């Protein structure tokens, strides 16, 4: 026989359908968003992985100064296949944007094949296919006309090139720009006719797919050297030493021929001439390597997939907090039901129902609602919400088309973990409650503590003493209310705090920057071997290297190593002789302190570096370590006196642009916050609304609990002749005062909670910044909560009004 008690489930559901519907919808919504994010992420990453074969993504590319001759290409290393990928970088004019630059390629057929997001590839000379995201950003679409290098083209396709999923113009740029930069494809003849200088880019694929980034790095290092030598020697050799020897010989032979005199032997002359003649065919093939970008280091390819992860980390935590709040709501609801059904439970226990049977029954509702929410949430996640998230990504990146794939991670995070959290919280509460003896249930005496004597109260006015008495009598209920409010406040802190933190970070970034400009040079000496200098009085040399962590909260996180001058005006600290200072952000995130030893390594190699922390330098703008520049050169085996570039608070204009590798500015350093703001920021408004709803729900349930518990007393004072307004002033006003106090206290507490959670999130991501909530933000949180409460108090007043006078006369055992 099936347990007949289970028949109640559907009836309970029907009776309290409004409450369960709200819980169900809230949970489905949250699970849906999270699931959408996980699924979109997983699907996009899968599409990225697959694009290597599907769209034949390059393993890297290099640029030569001139077009390579066939002979030169034949002399290129055997382990790669090379594909021409010439482009012309020309101005693009659309209605909304006059300043864009478009990098125009021929239609690719073998490598980096375009993904046609919309429309098709050009077929005639006046047709063009451009990057989909750029088109969206500048407001053009299929059928529109754009002017490229002075010629009008009709857009027939919106595309994504696998080697430009993020529109980085230069690989050394720190941020991409999909508004002023575009990539496009033309037919061969249209491309040939297009006015513009040709950049001779060659993309390549290894014969054998490199198994890891590290192998890519090894192969890439080898390749770049060989290609540079092959290009420089016109294919004579790929060996650097041999090339140098040849260069010396050529100089020698040339000098000999230029300075022939009576002492020069005919044999030498003829040998030199023969040798130079033998080299002539190579001279026709001579070229120069101007750029080499392997895939692992190509930001245009790697940036987008690396960015996806941060959203998921943030969303995961938000879902867990949210589910914990809902689990709490459920547990309170169930606990309330158990209190109301105490006599029935006592009877059932007295007649032989086991504790387990009753616990199972009371566990059913939260589990069923969670499972149903997970089902609907996942359906929404795999459909509507996934599309929302994907469109968000499509608004940031030039992404190839994807197929939705089953994501076990999404299942674990949005279904299994919520179910476990819900089950654990409810089981804890229900088991605790059910631990009481059947007799206690029969007597409706569910308090676990021993009854205390009435406390003597100060000589307040009668009504105030009455209120105080109510407060003391319901202290348990109010403690639960405090927990409920604190949970809601934590969610509110998240929704209010995250955008505020990002804004605050942006605002204070200027102060946090080491310098307004960081000029990174290609070399500290110019072509003539002279050390590069500037007359800019703000400029100060520094050195910089990027290493990654080998242990701690986030292995593999990038750490910037700075070498600075002794009396630096940008790093205001006494740099130690035998160790380093670490930035406070690094110290906080990795829990480092003075005296600790840190081991960092090169990102794509195994070489490690060990440093002793001699102090913390107050710099929250990034994870870095600081040392004297001499020590820096020593550590990294660099020439004495060498440096990487200049810190400067003003623009430097007297350094040859060709010598500047990149300039890091405020905008670049803020990329993390900009990205987070872009992706998560838009969600936070929804989270605030969800918080308001949850706030209403939690406070509604908890104040209902308190009023129901006092129904008998309320009824009694009604019998005695108290008016509703007086009863409200006793019960509702007391609760209002308590809620206001709780709101402020929990608001401040929630900041501690959020700081803790934020640290966990930040540890799973690259970079660091502290959570920040302004006083105004706190007031906003309190405001939202109080609005929730005042909506609820309206219902409370109605509830009190409805309590019948007969309640007081009920026979309670």
């Amino acid at each position: 026989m099936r347990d007949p008690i289970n028949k109640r489930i559907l009836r309970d559901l029907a009776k309290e359908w409004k409450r369960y519907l709200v819980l169900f919808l809230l949970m489905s919504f949250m699970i849906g968003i999270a699931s959408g994010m996980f699924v979109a992420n997983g699907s996009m990453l899968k599409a990225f992985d697959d694009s290597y074969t599907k769209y034949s993504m390059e393993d890297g590319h290099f640029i030569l100064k001139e077009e390579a001759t066939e002979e030169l290409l034949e002399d290129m290393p055997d382990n790669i296949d090379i594909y021409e990928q010439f482009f012309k970088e020309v101005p693009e004019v659309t209605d909304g944007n006059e300043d864009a630059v478009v990098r125009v390629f021929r239609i690719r057929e073998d490598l980096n094949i375009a993904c046609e997001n919309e429309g098709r590839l050009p077929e005639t000379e006046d047709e063009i296919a451009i990057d989909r995201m750029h088109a969206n950003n500048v407001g053009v679409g299929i059928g529109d006309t754009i002017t490229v290098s002075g010629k009008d083209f009709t857009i027939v396709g919106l595309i994504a090139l696998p080697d430009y999923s993020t529109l980085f113009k230069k690989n050394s740029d720190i941020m991409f720009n999909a508004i002023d930069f575009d990539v496009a494809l033309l037919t061969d003849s249209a491309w040939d006719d297009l006015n513009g200088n040709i950049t001779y880019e060659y993309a390549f694929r290894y014969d054998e797919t490199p198994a890891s980034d590290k192998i890519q790095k090894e192969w890439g290092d080898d390749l770049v050297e060989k290609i540079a030598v092959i290009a420089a020697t016109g294919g004579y050799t790929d060996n650097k030493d041999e090339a140098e020897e040849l260069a010396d010989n050529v100089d020698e032979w040339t000098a000999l021929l230029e300075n022939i005199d009576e002492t020069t032997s005919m044999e030498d002359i003829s040998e030199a001439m023969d040798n130079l003649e033998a080299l002539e065919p190579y001279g026709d093939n001579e070229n120069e390597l101007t750029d080499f970008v392997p895939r692992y280091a190509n930001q245009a390819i790697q940036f987008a997939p690396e960015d996806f992860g941060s959203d998921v980390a943030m969303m995961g935590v938000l879902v867990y907090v949210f589910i914990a709040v809902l689990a709490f709501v459920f547990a309170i609801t169930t606990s309330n039901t158990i209190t109301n059904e105490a006599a029935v439970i006592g009877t059932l226990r007295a007649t032989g129902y086991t504790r387990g049977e009753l616990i199972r029954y009371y566990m059913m509702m939260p589990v069923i609602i969670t499972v149903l929410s997970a089902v609907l949430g996942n359906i929404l996640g795999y459909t509507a919400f996934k599309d929302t998230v994907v469109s968000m990504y499509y608004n940031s990146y030039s992404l190839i088309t994807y197929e939705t794939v089953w994501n076990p991670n999404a299942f674990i995070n949005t279904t299994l973990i919520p179910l476990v959290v819900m089950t654990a919280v409810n089981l804890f509460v229900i088991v605790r409650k059910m631990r009481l003896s059947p007799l206690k249930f029969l007597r409706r005496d569910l308090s676990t503590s021993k009854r205390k004597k009435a406390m003597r109260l100060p000589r307040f006015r009668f009504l105030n003493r009455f209120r105080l008495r109510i407060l003391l009598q319901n202290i348990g209920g109010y403690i639960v209310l405090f927990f409920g409010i604190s949970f809601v406040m934590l969610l509110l802190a998240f929704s209010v705090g995250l955008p505020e933190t990002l804004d605050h970070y942006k605002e204070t970034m200027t102060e946090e920057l080491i310098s307004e400009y960081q000029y990174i040079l290609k070399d500290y000496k110019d072509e003539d071997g002279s050390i590069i200098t500037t007359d800019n009085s703000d400029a100060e040399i520094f050195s910089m290297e990027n290493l990654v962590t080998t242990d701690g909260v986030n292995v593999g996180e990038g750490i910037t190593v700075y070498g600075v001058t002794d009396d630096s005006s940008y790093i205001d600290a006494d740099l130690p002789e035998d160790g380093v200072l670490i930035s406070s952000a690094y110290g906080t995130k990795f829990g480092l302190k003075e005296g600790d030893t840190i081991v960092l390594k090169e990102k794509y190699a195994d070489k490690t570096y060990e440093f002793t922390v001699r102090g913390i330098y107050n710099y929250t703008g990034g994870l870095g370590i600081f040392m004297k520049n001499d020590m820096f050169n020593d550590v990294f085996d660099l020439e004495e006196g060498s440096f990487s570039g200049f810190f400067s608070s003003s623009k430097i204009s007297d350094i040859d642009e060709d010598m500047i590798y990149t300039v890091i500015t405020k905008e670049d350093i803020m990329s993390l916050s900009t990205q987070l703001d872009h992706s998560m920021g838009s969600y936070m408004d929804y989270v605030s609304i969800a918080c308001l709803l949850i706030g209403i729900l939690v406070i509604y349930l908890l104040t209902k609990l308190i009023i129901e518990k006092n129904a008998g007393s309320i009824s009694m004072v009604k019998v005695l002749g108290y008016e509703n307004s007086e009863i409200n002033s006793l019960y509702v006003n007391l609760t209002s005062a308590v809620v206001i106090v709780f709101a402020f206290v929990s608001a401040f507490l929630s900041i501690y909670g959020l700081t803790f959670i934020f640290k966990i999130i930040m540890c799973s991501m690259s970079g660091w910044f502290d959570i920040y909530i302004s006083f105004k933000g706190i007031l906003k949180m309190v405001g939202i909560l109080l609005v929730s409460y005042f909506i609820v108090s309206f219902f409370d007043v109605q509830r009190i009004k409805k309590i019948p006078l007969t309640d007081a006369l009920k026979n309670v055992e």
Partner: protein
Amino acid sequence: MSEKELQEFLSVCNVYKGFGEGDSRQEVLRGMDFQVRKGEFCVLLGPSGSGKSTLLNIIGGIDSADDGYISIAGDKLRDMDEKALTRYRRKHLGYVFQLYNLIPNLNVKENIEVGAYLSDDPLDIDELLNTLGLWDHRYKLPNQLSGGQQQRTSIGRAIVKNPDILLCDEPTGALDYNTSKEILKLIEDVNQKYGNTVIMVTHNNAIQDMADHVIKLRDGVVRKNIVNENKISAVDLDW
């Protein structure tokens, strides 16, 4: 079961029970001692505070004695752990309370099924509904029933598993005269038809006349232990 076992089916041996501590400690049972035979209709009679409900709860295994013991068919309750006590209640006991304690969103039949679920060999529910006079009301929810009908349902829930002992705690305490008599008649019928041992707690003196065995309690001790040779039917009771 031997004649001796039949005679001493339920033994209450020197049971003590008190509540509170220190000065406020109150001894409710002070050496309670008696036996009940199998199939007997036993009434525990006494004024408020005499300890009758406390004793019933100890017999029911939902409360425990401070000293002394209760044994049922030779098994001492004090030797049972919580699981064994639950098994004991499940297998041997039916409980009827003054305030019916029915599950509000289960109908009459389903409330009785709640009791049937606990038994491997429950009585036929339809037949029982007829016996209880609830056949026509079987699909009604408790709030659609009168007090008497609700108490009938709670009796149904208690006896459907055909328990060895039916414990009734003031079953007519919340009912009017006529309904009380109906309920008492029903319990009498159940006792006769199914042979369960009935232990009923009441403060109504009149009810003692329908019992086989009357135990009068006062101040936590047995004042009188009477075997009623001239019991009358519940219908003939008057008070």
